[in-house]
């Protein structure tokens, strides 16, 4: 190879090395693929289910007979899902008894928040707690999940049905 050829190649590489840092553009800011046009909603209230379904008509008396013990659903003390003592009581001798009203079953919503709670990730939301309590037994019976009937026939009334007298 002639000297000229070698020098030309070397010159080309020098240009390439020098230009390399300036070549290439940053990829444009990634647009969220598949995002709908217009604004994305922020936090959506779980009340959306109330639009889809009417409230559930729950026969407590019947379930008392089948459940056996209160803590099957009201898991304040005892049972697998029972919270720790500190979850409801302050661990302080003087206030221990006063912190929680004895004899009162706390409603689910006092511990299970209706919307997403980043501070209590291991605790199901209110909707999830309800569904888990019901499905615990009704799934075993072969209803939810495998039953082709779906949500409205099993427990929920359609909001249209709920409105009809």
């Amino acid at each position, binding site marked *: 190879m002639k000297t000229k050829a070698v020098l030309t190649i070397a010159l080309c590489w020098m240009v390439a090395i020098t230009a390399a840092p300036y070549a290439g553009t940053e990829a444009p800011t990634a647009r969220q*693929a598949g995002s709908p046009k217009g604004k994305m909603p922020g936090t959506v209230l779980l009340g959306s289910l109330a639009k889809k379904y009417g409230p559930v008509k729950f026969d407590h008396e019947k379930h008392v007979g089948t459940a056996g013990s209160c803590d099957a659903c009201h898991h304040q003390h005892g049972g697998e899902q029972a919270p720790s003592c500190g979850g409801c009581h302050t661990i302080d001798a003087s206030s221990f008894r006063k912190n929680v009203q004895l004899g009162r079953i706390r409603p689910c919503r006092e511990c299970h928040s209706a919307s997403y709670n980043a501070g209590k990730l291991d605790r199901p939301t209110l909707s999830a707690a309800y569904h888990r309590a019901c499905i615990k037994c009704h799934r075993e019976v072969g209803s939810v999940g495998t039953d082709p009937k779906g*949500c409205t026939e099993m427990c929920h009334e359609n909001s249209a049905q709920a409105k009809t007298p």
Partner: protein
Amino acid sequence: MEKPVKDAGGGSERGGGKVGKATVNRRDFLRGMAVVGGAALLGAPSDAEALHDLTGWPDRMGMLTDLTECVGCRSCESACNAANGLPAPEVPFDEKSVFERKRRPTASAYTVVNRYGNPKNPGNPIYRKVQCNHCEEPSCASACPVHAYTKTPEGPVLYNKDVCFGCRYCMIACPYYAPAYDYESALEPKVVKCTMCYGRIKAGGIPACAESCPVGAITFGKREKLLKIARNRIRKFPDRYVDQIYGEVEAGGTSWLYLSGVPFGQLDYPTNLPRRPIVENTKGFLSVVPLVLTLWPALLGLCYTANRNKEEEG
């Protein structure tokens, strides 16, 4: 003085020798290569594993899916469809007959749920949600020639359809076969996959699937926190869960974490994935390529020129 050695193997060298122009002596060539190789390796970046440790992003989010809770209601599929403005499916979301065959994400379904038999409890099948797992070090981002994928500090791996040219290397690279190709569109190729509802996360919300799950099987939160929660659940209920969080280390870890009551191999999860990110197979030598391509020809040319001059004088 060394005699020019003709290349007995044939090829382009021989022509140069016959005309009387100088050839590179084989020993000098090898010597030159060794010198250049040493120089290049010395100059190569010592830590090619630039992103191996993601502790720089401690707030990255994850999704913990508890397969022992999922009841196969497909609310997540329905919510994902609505949140992303996807076309209405051929089969409605409350139809359970879709479980008869195993499905995968498609261009119009970023997530699907599949049903598996439960050896522990035959009456209660296991349902598995499938979608992009938003890997910590995504193979799709590594394979893409045009940098269409980005791992965001928040956790989701996002895709930029404006630079994609439809090569589909990402589909080959993904160990979970997550990216789906929009075969319907000829002129605007688009690979689609779950976005972990990045827009909703940035606006302070949570992904649509997690929000819609009626039994709370999907938990959205910081990945580090979710790992602790998952370990706690396994510790508290050792008979309920298999002692593994799928996604903790697979292919370098994923944002999507799973807990299951049966071994993951029974649920079609890939179990042969290495613990290290797949990109680490290529990161090392590929990071040296630019240096090699610039340095070697220059140095080789110098060696050659120096040798040629030496022979001419001698």
